[in-house]
């Protein structure tokens, strides 16, 4: 039997959210909520998400992927989207899944989606999870925002105008909305992103955590901030596995690319029955 693909809209406090749900032909586990990355990284990630959802469905997991408000096919504009509304969206998706008989018991949080998920979990807006898988999580919002703003600055490298990311940060701080690579970033959204910081530990409600980083070559060392966070979480009794996968940064490549090994190892991570804390 093939996975059943269902797409539609669900009601959220901030507007109708488009979702894609892949139902396992033979459900054996709970539902995995996929928490998308930010802006263009999501477009580059869609193929990987579809592939992992298909693999998970074949192993008994139902997955749900929402487009957060103002993104993808959901209602609203990116210019008016806020991080707080995205956190609420996650809570609404979890409630909707529960009501439709597919309780969310695990998440796959990608890039900035990891930081947003952490906020929602910290605020108690999501249920306690059995498993959390992170794909190259981003927790340092200030640095991430600078890297995103650089898309606009880099475009100026070949032209005459030479604006800096510092200029753009300053304009956002004054309340301006700035267009970056086709995305209208409001000052409120920018403030939300840059207020995100690397947490001191990982909450127990995430359950067993597997953290995947994509590296360019074997033997790459885990970034210091990441190893410090993993160690702190383990010291607090959390079950945290860090793994690296050699390959291309599919969310960042010029053409759409995939990383089959990451998909296979992600499915294994969801299947492993690790103690949550």
């Amino acid at each position, binding site marked *: 039997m093939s996975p059943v693909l269902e797409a539609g809209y669900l009601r959220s406090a901030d507007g109708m959210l488009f979702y894609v749900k892949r139902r396992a032909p033979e459900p054996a586990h709970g539902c995995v909520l996929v928490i998308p990355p930010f802006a263009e990284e999501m477009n580059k990630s869609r193929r990987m998400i579809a592939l992992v959802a298909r693999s998970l469905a074949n192993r008994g997991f139902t997955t749900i992927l929402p487009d957060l408000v103002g993104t993808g096919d959901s209602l609203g504009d990116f210019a008016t989207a806020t991080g707080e509304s995205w956190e609420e969206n996650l809570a609404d998706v979890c409630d909707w899944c529960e009501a439709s008989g597919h309780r969310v018991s695990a998440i796959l949080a990608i890039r900035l989606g990891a930081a947003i998920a952490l906020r929602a979990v910290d605020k108690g807006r999501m249920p306690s999870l059995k498993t959390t898988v992170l794909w190259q999580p981003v927790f340092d919002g200030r640095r991430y925002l600078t890297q995103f703003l*650089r*898309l606009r600055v*880099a475009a100026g*490298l070949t032209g005459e105008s030479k604006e800096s990311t510092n200029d753009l940060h300053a304009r956002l701080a004054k309340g301006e909305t700035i267009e970056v*690579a086709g995305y209208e970033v409001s000052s409120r959204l920018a403030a939300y992103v840059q207020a995100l910081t690397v947490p001191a530990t990982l909450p127990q409600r995430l359950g067993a955590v597997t953290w995947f980083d994509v590296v360019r070559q074997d033997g790459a060392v885990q970034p*210091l901030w990441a190893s410090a966070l993993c160690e702190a979480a383990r010291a607090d009794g959390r079950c945290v596995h860090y793994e690296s996968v050699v390959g291309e940064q599919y969310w960042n*490549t*010029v053409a759409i*690319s995939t990383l089959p090994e990451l998909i296979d190892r992600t499915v294994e991570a969801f299947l492993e029955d690790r103690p949550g804390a």
Partner: protein
Amino acid sequence: MKYLETATSILGSALSLGSRAGSLSAETQLMGSLPEFDSMTVVSVLTMIEEELGTTIADEDVSAEDFATVGAVANLIERLRLGK
């Protein structure tokens, strides 16, 4: 050139060259010559250099010339590594 291998590895990944990354040399022309080397690629390359060096790169530390060739990218990495 000290960081040529690092530059080749980063550029190969940013441009999705796969095994063709081996064909890059210090003289390989990039920005302005390679159509797929656009602003998105510059951002990817800078992000990867930041991850490699564990640092944040200031705008004033880079210019278009740093992306003219593979060798220029290697020199940029070395300059940032040394904090110059």
